[in-house]
Each structure stands twice: as C-alpha cells, then as structure tokens.
C-alpha cells in the first residue's frame, strides 16, 4: 500500500506503509512492527517531501464542555435559548451564535456537526471517549488521536516531537491526559502544563561540546552492544537518544517571540492565542498532532456570562488560526478539530448555568479533507435530541481518519490480536468529507 501523500518520484517510492507491510509480513507477528520507518536524518530530501504533504491535526480542546447553544448551534427564541442571538454566516442558511462573528465570516473551510450523541456526560470517561473515538474495554488501553497521529504521521528520527499537548489550566487536566495506550511511550505526548517551554528541552549543567560529544560516545558504545542483537525495543532506545539534539535545536518552535509582532497581535495576547500560535509554528515544522487545551468551560453557574467572555476568544483564535494556516498553504493538509468532552444542557439550572450534556451537541472540523461551509446533522427545536444525522464518537473518528487519508479500518496488533482504528462496521460521514 502506498502512502497517498507521498511524493511520486521513483527513488522515493519506498512508502512507509509499504515498508511496514513487508516488515510485518517478515516478522510474522505484526505487533508494532509498522512504525514510521523512513530514516529522516539520513535523507533530508525525503523528509522535506514528506513534510510538505504530511497530514497534521491541531485540536482546540474546550475542556469542561463548551455550550453548543452559545457557539455552533444557537436556538434563539426558544425558552431555554439564552440571551444571545444568531447571525448569518458566509454560507446562506447557516447561522451561528452572534458571539462568533469572525467564524461566521469564514465558514468556508469548516463543517459544523450538530448531531453528536455520545451518551456519556461524565468528564473523565467522556474525555476518554472523545480523545479516542470509543470507550474501550477493560484489558485494552486504546491510544488517543494524538498517539495515532504520532504513529501514522510521525517520521522515524524526526527532529520534532510527534505529539504536543498544551494544557495549562488545572481544571480537567487530569481528566484528559494525552495517552499512547498500548502503542507505548514512543508515541506519547510532550505535555506543556506549567510553561510554554517543554520539560528537559534545554541543556543544563553541561557545556554544549560535552553534551554533544558524550551523546556521540553513547551512540558508539550502544552500537557495539547492538551488534548481533535485534529487537524493536532496542532500536527505539537508540532512536530516542538520536532525536534529542534535533528536538533541542527546535526549541525555538515553542518560542512565539520569534514571530513578527504583527502575527502575535493577530492571535492576541491571551494564553489561548499564544498557544494556538505556538501550535501553528509546530504544525508548520511537521509536528503531526498538537492539542491546545482551553479550560473553564464547565459553566454549571453563570453560563451566559462565561460564554460571553470565552466564546469571542474562541472565535478570534480559531478564525485567526484558520486564516494563518490558509495563508501559509497549510490548511490543505491540516485538520483543525474544535472539540470538547460534551456539550451543555439546553435547560438552564437555578444558578443560570447549563449542565453536562452529551445527547445532542456540536463539534467542528476545518481544513484538510473536509467539505467546508456546511452543516451536518440537526438537533431538534429545543436542542434536547438529535433530529437528524445522529452520530457517536466512533463515526466522528472514522470521519476524522478518512479526512486525513488514514484508513479507518486499519488494524494495529496487540500480540496476534488485531485492533482496528475504529470499531468494525463504523462508517465515515460522506457528507462531511470533501
């Protein structure tokens, strides 16, 4: 099988997956054999080709659960519709909350899905489902979307991390940590929780010369040990150390001060804006998956005041990100997912809040592989139920994988047991795909 986004020249016609398939066949047990197998360090040309066409994801994670009624599925005029009006968008007939005027003007790359029924309104388990596309089972720890992207789109020996997660707020962080599950630490997330600089990315206590020369000596000694010993665990150990200097050299990717003032102003001087800008820098450099967590959406009280404050920020950051990606030619290959663990109840509680609600809520997919300027599905008049096009997390994920060119039926192997990316029989939503 040839990688769809791979450059066509014959000397590069060794596709990653093709390599993998043969490797897996040779190994007999396919378990974990198919990790990215193109040696990027050895062939910068291949790396550039790949990077130009590699699919990427930026996920805007609205932790706590943003209200669909104050964002993408407004219901002005119904008793629980809240105080905000809806406005027309660039697509005739589609209206979103008046709190999102910028997204209303640039809906062309975005598909709004208004028919999620994910059946779970508990923060922790809902976050697990929405990061994985399924609940899982007791003895199988499924990888999340970031880890799958790291595995599918990360390049061996890559100079950049494969999976970066910004999650600075304390609220809900423990509910949805990045998790590589059975794929293992190789595909785990680089978490930025306390600062914009990743842990252990800066040299400390050793001068530059010693730092690099001891790494060379390490490589030499490990090489002696490796002779005559074959094991994928052993390879991964040396690969991990070989990636250190490249990742360190790329620390500047996290430094948005390196962006022109004009760009920084565009994203705005909020934490969310700054992290979204860092995400764009990482995306541009070839990081396959970046999540930007924006918390405090869990508005059990004062839902409208909170949304009045937070939705315009989301509108600003999301629209700026899409503009910027488009201007750089990146949106074609980058899928921006705006998602939470669930939405919020149409009913309004006694503290003017909305509570957890997973029965009829919204998400958006923008950019890569998506039919923009559209809406899929419909909630009923009150917003209590899905009236049309009901989907769960599984179909959302099948759609996401398809938009990225990853076969959603692809299997990973746990020992001899095949584990498909999505549960068998799950179909992507054609209407959402370009």
């Amino acid at each position, binding site marked *: 099988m040839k990688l769809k986004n791979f450059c066509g020249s014959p000397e590069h016609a060794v596709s990653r997956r093709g390599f993998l398939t043969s490797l897996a066949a040779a190994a007999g047990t396919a378990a974990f054999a198919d990790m990215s197998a193109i040696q990027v360090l050895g062939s910068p040309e291949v790396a550039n080709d790949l990077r130009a066409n590699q699919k990427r994801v930026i996920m805007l994670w609205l932790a706590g659960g943003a209200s669909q009624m104050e964002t993408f599925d407004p219901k002005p005029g119904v008793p629980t519709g809240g105080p905000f009006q809806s406005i027309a968008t660039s697509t005739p007939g589609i209206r979103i909350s008046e709190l999102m005027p910028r997204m209303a003007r640039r809906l062309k790359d975005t598909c709004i899905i208004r028919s999620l029924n994910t059946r779970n309104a508990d923060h922790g388990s809902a976050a697990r489902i929405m990061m994985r596309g399924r609940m899982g089972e007791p003895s199988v720890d499924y990888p999340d979307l970031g880890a799958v992207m790291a595995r599918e789109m990360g390049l061996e020996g890559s100079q950049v991390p494969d999976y970066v997660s910004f999650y600075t707020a304390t609220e809900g962080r423990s509910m949805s940590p990045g998790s590589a599950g059975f794929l293992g630490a190789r595909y785990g997330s680089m978490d930025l929780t306390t600062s914009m600089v990743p842990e252990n990315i800066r040299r400390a206590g050793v001068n530059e010369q010693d730092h690099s020369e001891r790494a060379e000596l390490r490589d030499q000694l490990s090489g002696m040990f490796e002779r005559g010993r074959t094991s994928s665990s052993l390879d991964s150990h040396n690969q991990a150390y070989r990636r*250190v200097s490249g990742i360190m050299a790329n620390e500047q990717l996290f430094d948005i001060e390196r962006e022109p003032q004009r760009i920084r102003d565009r994203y705005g001087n909020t934490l969310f804006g700054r992290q979204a800008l860092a995400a764009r820098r990482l995306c541009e450099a070839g990081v396959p998956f970046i999540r930007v967590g924006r918390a405090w959406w869990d508005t059990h009280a004062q839902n409208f005041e909170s949304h009045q404050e937070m939705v315009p920020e989301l509108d600003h950051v999301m629209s700026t990100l899409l503009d910027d990606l488009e201007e750089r030619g990146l949106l074609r290959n980058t899928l921006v997912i705006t998602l939470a663990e669930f939405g919020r109840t149409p009913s309004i509680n006694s503290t003017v809040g909305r509570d957890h609600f997973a029965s009829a809520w919204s998400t958006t997919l923008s950019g890569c592989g998506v039919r923009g300027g559209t809406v899929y599905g419909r909630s009923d008049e009150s917003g209590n139920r899905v009236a049309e096009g009901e989907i769960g997390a599984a179909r959302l994920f099948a759609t996401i994988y398809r938009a990225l060119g990853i076969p959603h039926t692809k299997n990973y192997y746990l020992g001899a047991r095949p584990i498909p990316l999505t549960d068998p029989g799950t179909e992507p939503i054609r209407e959402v795909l370009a």
Partner: protein
Amino acid sequence: MLRCFTACSFFLFGSSLAFAQPSAQLLPADRSIEQAVDHYIDAKLKEDKVTPSPRADDAAILRRLTLDLNGRVPTVVELQEYLASTDPIKKTKLVDRLLESSAYSRHGAQTFYAFMQYSEGRPRKGDKGNPLYDYLLSSLSENRSWDRIFREMMLPNEADPKMKGASDFLKSRVKDLNKLAIDTSSTFFGVNVSCAQCHNHPHVQQWTQDQFYGMKSFFARTVDSGGFLGERDFGVVKYIPNKGAEKVSPILFLSGKKIDAPGMKDPTGEERKKEQMRLDQGKKAKAPPGPPQYSLRAKLVETALAPENREFFARNIANRMVHRVMGRGLVMPLDQVHSENPASHPELLDWLARDLADHGYDLKRVVRGLVLTNTYARSSRWEGEKAPDERLFAVAQVRPLAPMQMATSLKLTTADPQSLPTDRKKLEDRIVALEGSASGLANLFPQPTDNFQVGVAEAMLFANNEALQKSLLAGVGTLTERMKQEPDLTKRVDLAVRTVLSRPGRPEDVQALVGYLQRRQDRPDAANQQIVWVLLTSAEFRFNH
C-alpha cells in the same frame, strides 16, 4: 442491549514453523524442570536444524540472574567474587542465594502486581501502601503456592486484617462484572474472553458467547456491601445472544463444565428479605457480611482446580512463569492460550503444567528450574546472518528493565562502590534502603510491554534534567567521586564499566572511554561524570540481556 465495541477477529500465525501436535507421551514426571525444558527446546532446534547461540559469559549470567531474581544489577564486589570463583556449581549456589534474598519476593511482587493491574505500557503507579502489592509481597515471602493465592484472592477473608490486600483484585473490579470476569479469566486461566462478549468466536470453536457469560455468571452474585465484598444467594446473568431471545446464561467454566447451582430462580419475598438481612447485618457491624448458603465464587475455585478442569489454571501459570524468566511465553500473547493459538512447544507446556500441579504450584521451584536451564543461559547475541525465529528460544531475549529494576539499578550503580557493605546481610539492608529511595524515580519509567518502545521523553530526561544528573553523577558518596581517586585512566574506566555495566571493560570500549577522558584533561571531574552518563544511557544498561 450490548453492542460490540471490540474487534475480535483473530490473526493466526502464518506458521513458518511446523508445530508438533502434543503427544500423550510426555517425558516422565520425575525429570527435573531443567532437563524437561532443555529436552523439548533442543529437540525443536534440532528438528529445525538451528544451532542456538552459545552460553553467555559469567558476567552476563550474573547480571541476568540478579536482575531476574532480585530486581537489580550486581555490585562490583559480587561481580568480582563470581568471576573469581572456580566452584563448578557456583551458578546453582548463586541462584539459591538470590532466591533466599528478601529482594526475590519484592521483585516478584512488583512483577505480579504489574500484570494484575494491567499496567503495562502505562506510567508506573507507586506500590506504596497498596494492599494488593502488600498481599503479594507477603505471599511471595513465604512462597505461598499459586493455587492458594488464587483461592485467597477469589475468596478473601476480609475479617483478617493481614489478608486485606487479597480482596483488592475483586474489590477494585466489583462495580464492573464484565471487567471482573475478563480479568480473572486472563490472569488465572490465560484466556481473554472479552471477544465472546458480543458474538461466538470466529476462529476458536470452543469460545462462544456462553463462555463469556458463563464466566461472568460465577461473579453474578458478588456485590459491594458497605465497603466489603458480599455474595448474594440468588442472581443470574441474562443476555441477548446474537441470535434468539434473551436467555439466562448457564454457569459455565472454560473447560465446558456446567455448574448446577441453587438460586437460579427469582427468590421469594421471604428469601429476599433473609438475604438482605444478612448483608445489612454486616453493614451495620462494619464487618464483612456472612457467607452465602452457596458461593459461586467458591465453586469457581473448586472447578478451576479440579484435576479434570485444571489445564487452564496450570498452563496459564506455567506459560506466565516461562515468560517472566525467558522474556517470552511458550504461548504468545499470554492471554490467548487456546486451541487456535498453539504453543511453540506444546508438550513442554503440558509437562510444565503437570509439574506445577504435581508440586503444589510452587512458584519458587519453577523459577529455580527455569533459570538453571541451558536455554536460559544462552547469549543474547546472534553471530550468524539472520536471527532465528524467537519461538525457538535459540537466543536469549533482550528485555527492557521494569521501572523498579531500572531505578534501583540506577541508584546502586551510581553509588560509590566502596560505600556498599560487603557483608551480605548489611548489603541486603542497604538495598532495601536504596529501593525505598528509588521508588519516586521508578515512576518516571513506564511498565514495559512485549514490544516496548522507549519514548523520546526518557532520552530528554537523561540528557537534560539537571536534578537527575546531579543526583546520579555528582556529590559525596557517588561513583564519580571514587573515580577521582584513581589516577590510572584505564583502571578508572574499568571501574566505571564494572560498576555500571556489571562486566569487566573490553578493549574496544575501554579505548573509546579512555580517549574521551584524555581529551578532557582540563576538566576531569566533568569528564568522569560524562563517562558514567554514557554508560547509564547505553542500551547495555537499559536492558536485561
């Protein structure tokens, strides 16, 4: 209505090796474990015309045994003594000493704890104060038999405070009976029945939906009762099969043995009242409720251990112990021991299962037998063209260290070797203290899986975390301080290699390391630290080989 969330088609090995059918004729039961293992492994090698790799050298054997049996690498003095000894049975003596050490139970408890928690691949959670870990530790300390551990975990006596941890396996799963059935079956019988939850197994004829619900039925009456485990007198599992109407699941063991139990019909009001009173009495007294008139869990234990059904229980532990010692089971994966996934050496699996059952499921005895085999003692290096199929056990496996093995060994090897007591008893005490101080460090490393992949975060941690480097490489009482006292660079490097890699220096690595020190004569202290860093971060340290 249950939906199938899991993909259950099974990939079967396109077998390049022809596996023999198990024969009724096994080697006699009076053979030693060593003899039986080597007999079957060698026979298969001969049949496939593969010459296994040679015996590993003494230093490699010492390191492997110390890691496998005591969860740490050997000290410089232990290495010196072992290499110097000309005693023809020094290996056996070493094995017996390691098995007698209290570290054997601690390391064993870590290993069992990890697999019972299904924590492979996840960041390690501390064992501190975990009742299940404590229970496993005390069980292994007195070499409690595996069938007794099984019985105690299935039928825990919660009134006995010392047995508190035995109930943890059930208690942590009692709110999810599916999980309880699946984990019990995987842990103790080597069969993951989760596939059969949704449909009959596509490839394994013997696995039907009844198999899953049948196993679940043994736990159908198990409930949380005021923080204690209770078992009701009534209760069945009902399910809607793929074809047909809702039915009551039979109580069915994996072997096909059906259990006729009372309490399958709906209880009368009177009976229900009586049952509730029994549970309420416990709650009121803040004590475990009294036992039911008929315990399904007790029936599970009885059935699983009965000679005619015990093959699941016995094969599972035999396979898991081979995996623990050799780094690979006779059947892989460990929870897929079924007819369509044959063992690499079916007769050996049967022989070991019988041997375990005949000898009261003595775990220490089987570990001892396995580590004394020639199979265990092979080199992990393959000099030929292409390494043979792993299923032949022709080459020793290279295995990543588990979190506590890694952390304890880091602490031990970076300490000044002369600061370690040479007296065995005192060294044991020091190791206990080291393990205590290594526990936090261990949480930085994930529990390895069978195809474990090291993440870049680990390399970044070692490369750039200043606190970690300082604690390991600098200051009073460290190896690098001792290295300063040795003016001869070759001897200094040899000391570092012996300490960290548990073997004498070899010309090629000594040369490279001495060269490095010579180029750094303007900053010798830093150079010593970097030498130790290089050794600690080499694959040779990170793996058991």
